[in-house]
């Protein structure tokens, strides 16, 4: 498996270098820092949300409601900070993340215990959570001047500790947060029994049940984690954009998250993939966006490119799994 992962990660790194190279070759003004910065600041959001979705897809599930979770949690956080500034940025963030966990638990409960297929449950809550976003906000947006400066600073400033270090000092908090989340996710998936149970369940659900793995609980928790990731990303969204609009926030985000996870090497057939690959693929998608922008290719290409790359990743995974089975002497 190490080899397989290394292979996917290697190809992602090559793809990133290639895209950066092509962009630089075609457009010398590529390195305009402002430009890159503004686009890349979206990567931490994606990465944080993708970590939870990774667990879900490894268990052979899917959560298409993650964009709506981001929306509802981000909206709620922004409203709380506008109306109850005494909560503090930290307090509001905890509530936002906790709300994400609850929303994920609703998905997970229906899927793990009531045996509703993941696509139906989360397609339903995609609509429900978006409707709730509208209800809690009364359809009105929260503007950046209504939010505390501290929250905005997450996306502007780095830790004071690093303020003297050249280059590093320009990396804002959101990036550090995302790195910490990815690290925790990697450690969790590698060094906890829960993390290993997730892989076992995705790799062979029947065997997992017979070997005594608490299959329902593992499934349930995967959606809770996905909700936490979505909620956290919602908080970061408020920090990143300042203006939080109930109909704009998180719309279509689920596709980007799922694309990032699958392109990052998590097979839709379950059981393989992990945080490092997904982190790289988030970066790749960020770089693609930067490249599109500096090459003056309209944003309108973005969705088609995501769809195409996602499709290619799915087909490649299937081919790869098939050849792995063949090499292992299994019938295909």
């Amino acid at each position, binding site marked *: 498996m190490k080899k397989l992962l290394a292979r996917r990660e290697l190809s992602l790194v090559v793809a990133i270098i290639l895209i950066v190279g092509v962009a630089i070759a075609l457009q010398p003004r590529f390195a305009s820092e402002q430009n890159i910065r503004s686009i890349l600041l979206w990567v931490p959001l994606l990465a944080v949300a993708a970590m939870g979705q990774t667990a879900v897809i490894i268990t052979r599930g899917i959560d298409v409601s993650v964009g709506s979770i981001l929306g509802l949690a981000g909206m709620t956080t922004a409203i709380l900070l506008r109306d109850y500034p005494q909560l503090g940025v930290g307090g509001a963030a905890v509530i936002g993340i906790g709300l994400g966990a609850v929303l994920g638990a609703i998905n997970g409960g229906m899927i793990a215990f009531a045996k*509703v297929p993941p696509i139906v449950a989360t*397609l*339903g809550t995609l609509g429900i959570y978006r409707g709730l976003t*509208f209800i809690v906000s009364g359809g009105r947006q929260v503007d950046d001047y209504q939010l505390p400066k501290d929250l905005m600073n997450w996306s502007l400033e780095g830790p004071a500790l690093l303020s003297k270090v050249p280059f590093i000092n320009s990396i804002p908090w959101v990036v550090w947060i995302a790195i910490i989340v990815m690290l925790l996710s990697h450690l969790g998936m590698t060094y906890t029994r829960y993390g290993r149970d997730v892989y076992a369940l995705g790799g062979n659900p029947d065997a997992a049940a017979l070997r005594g793995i608490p299959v329902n609980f593992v499934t349930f928790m995967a959606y809770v984690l996905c909700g936490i990731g979505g909620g956290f990303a919602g908080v970061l969204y408020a920090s990143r954009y300042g203006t939080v609009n109930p109909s704009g926030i998180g719309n279509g985000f689920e596709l980007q998250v799922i694309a990032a996870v699958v392109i990052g090497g998590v097979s839709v057939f379950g059981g393989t993939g992990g945080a490092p690959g997904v982190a790289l693929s988030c970066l790749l998608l960020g770089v693609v966006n930067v490249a599109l922008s500096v090459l003056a290719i309209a944003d309108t290409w973005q969705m088609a490119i995501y769809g195409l790359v*996602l*499709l290619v990743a799915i087909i490649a995974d299937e081919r790869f799994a098939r050849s792995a089975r063949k090499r292992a002497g299994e019938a295909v």
Partner: protein
Amino acid sequence: MITRIRSRFGPEIVAVVLLILAFGFSAFREPRFLDAEYLFDRSTLYMEAGILALSMTFVIIAGHIDLSVTSILALVGAICTTLVSKYGLPPAAMIIIAPVVGGALGALNGLLVSKGKLPSLVVTLATMALFRGVAQILLGDHSLPMPKELVGIHKIQLPGTYFHVPMVLLAILAVIAAGVLHRTVWGRWVTALGTNAEAARHAGIPTGKILIQLFTLSGVAAGIGSMLMLSRLGVARFDHARGLELDVITAVVLGGASIFGGRGTVFGTITALGLVGVVQTGMGVAGVKAEVQVAVIGLLLIVSVLFSNFTARKRGR
């Protein structure tokens, strides 16, 4: 006999009862619901979803799902209007080209699912983005006009009645679909495929071919739906019908088709579509915002699956 009907058509009966209740409640709150002209006028909004729901009924009965139909609808609209306005295609040709293009896009899904042995959920999730993305590349944030002679089909009524053309079309297609599903070999094969794909293959049923045909059919329906929508709205936009897949899937599942495949009826789907329409219209009249309406439809979807899971478990399946 009665128990047999109840056990065979239980979910459909539930949908009918819910429809009557929703309609009664709405009419009680809003007398306009009893005005035929108003009703038929509102119903024009649901004809496109109805056509998509017909083909989705087959796809879901076969144990699959097609999330990309609404994107096919948008892309077909984008391609057709682009061909007309930029390449001088005669407007009348759209009527032929739309279902053909839709069918081709659907066939791509079908090939990937059938030959590529990929789950339809992820394939159509990817093509949902891809197809709408291509529509966005073609149209950007602009809209292209539908040729004038093709605009307003929903305003044409059968002489002396309130029945408009899209409704007549949907009615005809629904009758055909019901016939195909319940009375043809192909329809029975689709049901067998959804009941147990392996057993169907063991019975000599060409399951691979059927899958390709199913997704092609789904694309053709999206092509027809596209023409109706463009005619109604007068323009093509890349974000047409975005999110409509929720209404479509809800109608099919609420109408009694099992999300696990193997059962479902066209009658149920059409009834549930009516229910979705009445609920949405009722909320619209009551001033409920569109986003909240979506939430209610999402809730309907989940409740219907929870309900059918619950009754299935009670029957000891």
